[in-house]
């Protein structure tokens, strides 16, 4: 969503206000007038100032409050955006249980099939399999990252 400077400025003013709110109970350092809240509040004050500047500028400039991105007119592109986010969220939720080889392969396969088109299914399968095996070897074996095997634990190398 493309928003006017007035809206984006207001978002940052609100964020600055939230910082003030969340820092109200921070401890002071003994014998000092400032503590853990001092630096975040300094940042928040500057942010509120610049945010207000944007609000004023946006109001003066006029124009629409918000407009959708060019690609939002195309359901295909909305799908592209959504599928990337969906694969990431699904990976976060399920990779621990089903393991990297299956989660990675499924994620890549879905992404390539959707983005490149189902007609390229063979390319999608080959690329997904080679990439996941390559990453499993490179990260898992060479760099010793404990990528979870999950359901394939029985065949772990």
């Amino acid at each position, binding site marked *: 969503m*493309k928003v006017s400077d007035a809206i984006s400025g207001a978002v*940052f003013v609100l964020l600055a206000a939230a*910082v003030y709110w969340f820092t109200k109970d921070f401890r002071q350092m003994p014998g000092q007038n400032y503590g853990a809240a001092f630096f975040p509040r300094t940042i928040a004050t*500057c942010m509120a100032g610049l*945010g207000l500047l944007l609000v004023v500028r946006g109001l003066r400039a006029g124009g629409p409050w918000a407009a959708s991105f060019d690609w939002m007119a195309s359901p295909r592109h909305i799908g592209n955006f959504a599928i990337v986010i969906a694969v990431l969220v699904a990976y976060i939720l399920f990779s621990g249980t089903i393991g990297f080889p299956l989660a990675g392969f499924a*994620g890549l396969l879905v992404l*390539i099939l959707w983005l490149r088109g189902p007609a390229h299914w063979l*390319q999608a399968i080959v690329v997904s399999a080679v*990439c996941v095996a390559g990453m499993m070897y490179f990260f898992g074996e060479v760099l010793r990252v404990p990528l979870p095997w999950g359901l394939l634990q029985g065949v772990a190398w």
Partner: protein
Amino acid sequence: MDTFLIALPLVFDPYVLTVIVLSGMFGLFMGAIPGLSATMATALLVPVTFFMAPVPALAAIVTATAMAIFAGDIPGALLRIPGTPASAAYTDEAFALTRKGKAELALGTSLAAAVIGGLFGSLVLVFAAPMLAQVAKNFSSYEYFWLACLGLTCAAFISSGDPAKGGISLLLGLLIATIGLDPMSGQARFTFGSIELMGGVSFIPAMIGMFALAEVLRSVTAVNPPPEVPQAAIGNIFRGLGGVLSKYRKNLFRGSVIGAAVGALPGAGSDIAAWISYAVSKKFSKEPEKFGTGHVEGLVDAGSSNNAALGGTWVPALVFGIPGDSITAIVIGVLYLKGMNPGPTVFLQQPQLIYAIFITFFLANLLLLPLGFASIKASKQLLRIHRMVLMPVILIFCMVGTFAINNTVFGIGIMLVLGLIAYLMEENGFPIAPAILGLVLGPLLEDAFMTSMIKGDGNLLTFFERPIAAVLGVVCVLIWLSPLLRRRRGRVAAE
């Protein structure tokens, strides 16, 4: 000289040399594909370098970035799309040469200028960094505070045409850096009960999200169809090159000097160096009317400038821990991870590592000649790789790379959230580089600020008591006030 001899075997080790060649190929690939920048190449390399010793880790980044900056010229010349922002200044010129049937001359000139500029930038780094480190030895928390402010301010002001939005981006980065336990008081800040956030927002997932995931999202939502890859084979890129280099040798030197100098300024990197050099080239040219019509002169200036800037950006990064651009912001994060805390002390405590970096710079720029030549020859195949296959692969790589840092999917969550924020911000005109600089420099800035406040017993004037600190502070405050002063002057002039 002794240190140099100790550093030589650190670089000329089979493992390190293999890393250099592989990361060089990776950098060329990333630079040559439009939409994948040198910064993204660095961001994707970091999780891999995380597992390496300091010398191969830094050698990989130096080589990949040097290659990527040059490789950005390839799609610029062949498709009129800059592979990286550093090539944007002269893309039209290079493409005009291609349309005249001189693609070989455009690519050959770019390659030669990149190698020469890169070597010049390396020389500047070798001489300037140790000298500045001598000066910086006497710096206290006050000077560091102002230096960090200056670096961040320049980043916010230079990286975007809109200082207010650059400033907000920077402040957001600084704010994210405060998440976690406050080192001074032990207070948990903005963790909302999450144990994982206690340790703060890890820099690597944040950076991968902001630079790589945001770019993947932009790429999959791009409405323009991918451009047609030219069918003609690339011929001999060295034909006529000797004449061009000899005719424009002054331009080569001028571009390199401007590049190294601009790169060394905090907040300005290769892309800005290329724009300035191209403009200077046109201004002082004997044939300015030919610019834009496929004239090689601007290519010599700007092509050498963006690669020279790379060496320049490492000067403030190594000496003060102040990034010259977004790539060195990532480098500073890596230096901290490797226990090579940037600053003058690293020149005293680990000089062999610093010299190893210097040697790598020369090696990477020399290696650019054969590898760059090979990538030009393979450009048709490289440009044919489908974006919609490449992006999913990059996404999975980002996920595994992020996981690898802390072995938890929490990092992937950080990457997702910050990637979305970065995407929304960039689409609304907020630059992202200042946020990354803020994230990297935030802890240093807060530490220097709080230490200085405690030393000065809360008296803000102590920030201006030492001479160098006073100069830096005044410069900083003047830059902050400059938009107001300009507006006031504009009003007076209007009246």
